[in-house]
């Protein structure tokens, strides 16, 4: 770590926030950073003279949840070249994850321009895409790895090349322009222009512009409403469409019959513009959140190394057939059930079973599909099944539950259905009452038109999307990204939280507690221990190495270390024989991992899984707030029981050795629409699809985030409790807005029924109510609002 760099830390950030990402630090976090990832990236940015990132970034950044991995597989890169690439100029399109602000764009541009052969780079943070033009001399892989070390991740270009909201934005822009112009023209009519050629021009122009507004803005709602009615769903677009259609029809009748007392052209235009704005807010926010992550390719994204006549070729895993010989490099996935051909292999199945410890296997052993090479040596396997029968197929299948917009379900849908019927009844009632009282169909039609125009579904057309956007923005600031528009509605009903263990409540890493026995080692013994641990890639050795780093040990470069497979490491130093490994091997007695000197026990090195820094505090707080907490893990019973004890989760609610289908069945049996599941592994994907709500802290596994309602961009669990709280606040604000809407509509419809509603009065009432409800929503959900503190 560059200490000079720490001294130049951005002044704007207080000591209680992480120096890199700027998010608040919990008391459990020591030092100046919330995680190792942030610390490493902070040093990289300073060493690379890229400190300007911090001044260009607006607000807090994103924590680097994992220590950046510079050796990630980029075998998909050959597919990223575009057709217009030539021998002298290459054009590539890639997806990127983790980019969110000007600072990110600047870092990418700066690092890109530093290499020879860099022609042009266009970064699109909204879409999460980069496009680059380079010459053959540009060191592409080197640049990609360098950028990934800052915490970004590249992937094949799978996301749509636009947000799908451009047409909508165009409609919004044009509708707002029309509404403003019609309002200006109408103002002249309201202020006394009621005859003459100019009056005719203004009137005709208003009608033409309002018609254009209906043609441009109407289809957005009409199409959706018709689709909803076909599937017998009365959602929000139905009242909006009926409102637009009938108000315009009434105004058209008034225009052609010369009855200006029923001419509501400005109200129609303003209404369309406001509703379109609400829709744009809704769609853009969700799309932007989804595009922050790489898209999931499902099983198509998996690639494997096949051995053919002694050479290695990279293929899609879906092409693997039984009998294929595969090379599994360190960190690679075993995509199908296979038999080990190499003498030994260290594999981890935490991704698929939740079992946290790596296992040493010998030649001939069977490997499960989904196992990872956790060692530092490649090994060979022979597939014993076709990929078609691999359980990964089901686990990586993309979910169909994503993409719901906030207005499609919940309280708003119920109110929408009643709203449609209520407004139609009010218009019909007004028409019937006036024709009965006056016998004039013209007057009765004026009243009915007034009812249809002034009744405004602004509360759920614009105020509800705005409330969702404000809450989601707040949660984004805390590191929780909502992918599904209906998530906050569902979350308000949650009473139970179900957590996976490995990688969710734990960080997925082992840690070595620095006990008195460790600190009592002589400096020579500590240096030997550090050197032995450094020579092995075993997870326990890595934990020992990380644990000792704080004591500044020296690496004995000349030490001759021998690894005894399945047992440990040994060496001779200054006439003594040291062993680090299994106690039975190192000291002929005891259990666990030890360091011995000439067969004598020096120190026990018991590692444990590192729980997330705030896991204990958050589980305790959630329990205190009345939520039921459950633990569903694929790990062994003793470790699950230990974790439950550590986090104060009752043993009766901690379930071990749960397979993916066990978890799914448990949730199907217990979830009454009130459970939130949080998991990270492939073994959690079925459970995530089954639960009412689901989330994941696994940003490096796009398939998982794509199956969940939200993902966490931080190492902490605190944003989950924030989201539960936010959902409650949101529900109360939406309810209050609905009460306000009811009161406004009651008043406006009463005025229309009384026959006193005039176009000028509607032109004041309707926009005023919309502005009022938008202001009230904004103030209620602003960061300073007392609602958040209650």
């Amino acid at each position: 770590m560059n200490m000079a760099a720490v001294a130049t830390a951005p002044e704007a950030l207080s000591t209680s926030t992480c120096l890199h990402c700027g998010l608040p630090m919990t008391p459990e976090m020591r030092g100046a950073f919330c995680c190792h990832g942030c610390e490493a990236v902070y040093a990289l940015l300073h060493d690379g003279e890229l400190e300007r990132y911090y001044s260009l970034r607006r607000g807090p950044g994103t924590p680097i949840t994992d220590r950046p991995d510079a050796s990630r597989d980029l075998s998909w890169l050959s597919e990223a070249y575009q057709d217009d690439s030539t021998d002298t100029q290459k054009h590539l399109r890639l997806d990127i994850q983790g980019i969110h602000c000007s600072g990110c764009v600047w870092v990418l541009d700066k690092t890109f321009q530093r290499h020879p052969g860099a022609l042009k780079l266009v970064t699109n943070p909204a879409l999460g895409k980069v496009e680059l033009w380079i010459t053959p001399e540009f060191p592409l892989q080197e640049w990609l790895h360098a950028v990934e070390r800052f915490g970004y991740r590249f992937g094949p270009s799978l996301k749509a090349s636009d947000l799908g909201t451009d047409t909508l934005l165009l409609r919004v822009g044009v509708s707002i322009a029309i509404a403003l112009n019609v309002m200006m023209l109408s103002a002249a009519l309201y202020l006394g222009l009621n005859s003459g050629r100019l009056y005719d021009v203004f009137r005709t122009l208003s009608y033409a512009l309002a018609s254009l507004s209906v043609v441009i803005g109407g289809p957005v709602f009409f199409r959706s409403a018709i689709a909803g009615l076909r599937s017998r769903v009365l959602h929000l677009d139905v009242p909006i469409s009926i409102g637009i259609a009938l108000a315009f029809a009434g105004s058209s009748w008034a225009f052609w019959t010369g009855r200006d007392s029923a001419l509501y052209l400005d109200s129609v235009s303003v209404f369309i513009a406001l509703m379109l704005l609400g829709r744009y807010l809704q769609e853009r926010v969700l799309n932007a959140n989804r595009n922050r992550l790489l898209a999931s390719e499902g099983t198509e994204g998996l690639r494997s190394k096949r051995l053919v006549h002694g050479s290695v070729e990279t293929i899609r895993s879906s092409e693997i057939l039984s009998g294929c010989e595969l090379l599994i490099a360190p960190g690679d996935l075993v995509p199908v059930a296979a038999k080990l051909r190499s003498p030994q292999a260290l594999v981890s199945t935490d991704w698929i079973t939740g079992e946290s410890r790596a296992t040493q296997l010998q030649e001939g052993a069977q490997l499960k599909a989904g196992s990872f090479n956790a060692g530092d040596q490649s090994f060979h396997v022979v597939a014993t099944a076709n990929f078609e029968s691999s359980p990964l197929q089901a686990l990586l299948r993309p979910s169909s539950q994503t993409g719901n917009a906030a207005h499609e379900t919940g309280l708003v849908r119920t109110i929408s259905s009643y709203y449609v019927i209520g407004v139609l009844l009010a218009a019909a009632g007004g028409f019937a009452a006036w024709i009965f009282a006056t016998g004039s169909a013209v007057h009765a039609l004026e009243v009915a038109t007034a009812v249809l125009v002034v009744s405004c579904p602004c509360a759920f057309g614009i105020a509800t999307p705005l409330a969702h956007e404000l809450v989601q923005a707040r949660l984004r600031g805390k590191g929780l990204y909502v992918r599904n528009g209906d998530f906050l509605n569902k979350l308000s009903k949650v009473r139970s939280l179900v957590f996976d263990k490995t990688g969710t409540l734990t960080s997925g890493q082992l840690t070595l507690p620095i006990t008195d026995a460790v600190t009592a080692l002589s400096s020579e013994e500590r240096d030997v221990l550090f050197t032995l641990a450094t020579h092995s890639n075993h997870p326990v050795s890595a934990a020992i190495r990380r644990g000792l780093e704080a004591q500044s040990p020296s690496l004995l470069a000349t030490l001759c270390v021998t690894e005894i497979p399945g047992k440990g490491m040994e060496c001779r130093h200054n006439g003594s024989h040291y062993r680090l490994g299994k106690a039975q091997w190192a000291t002929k007695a005891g259990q666990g991992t030890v360091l011995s000197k000439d067969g004598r026990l020096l120190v026990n090195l018991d590692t444990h899984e590192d729980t997330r820094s705030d896991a204990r505090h958050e589980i305790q707080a959630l329990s205190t707030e009345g939520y039921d907490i459950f633990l569903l893990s694929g790990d062994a019973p003793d470790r699950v029981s230990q974790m439950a004890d550590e986090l104060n989760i009752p043993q009766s609610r901690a379930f071990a050795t749960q397979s993916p289908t066990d978890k799914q069945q448990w949730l199907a049996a217990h979830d009454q629409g009130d459970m939130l599941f949080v998991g990270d592994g492939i073994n959690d994907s079925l459970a995530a699809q089954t639960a009412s709500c689901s989330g994941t802290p696994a940003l490096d596994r796009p398939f998982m985030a794509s199956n969940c309602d939200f993902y966490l961009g931080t190492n902490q669990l605190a944003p989950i409790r924030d989201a539960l709280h936010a959902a409650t606040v949101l529900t109360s604000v939406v309810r209050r807005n609905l009460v306000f809407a009811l009161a406004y509509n009651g008043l406006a419809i009463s005025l229309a029924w009384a026959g006193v509603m005039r176009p000028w009065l509607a032109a004041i009432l309707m926009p005023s109510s919309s502005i009022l409800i938008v202001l009230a929503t904004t103030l209620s959900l602003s960061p300073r609002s007392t609602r958040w503190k209650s």
Partner: protein
Amino acid sequence: MEVIILLIFVSLVLAGTGVAFFAWNLRQKSHEHGDRLALLPLELDNDES
């Protein structure tokens, strides 16, 4: 009177031009990478220094 008609015509042309420019800008998709475009003046600063 004719002047007002002329003014209306001119204002409609201006409004139409504005909408056309807005649509053209959307087609350029520059609003989607505004963060990058906002940095271009900084690049000029660096070139001059």
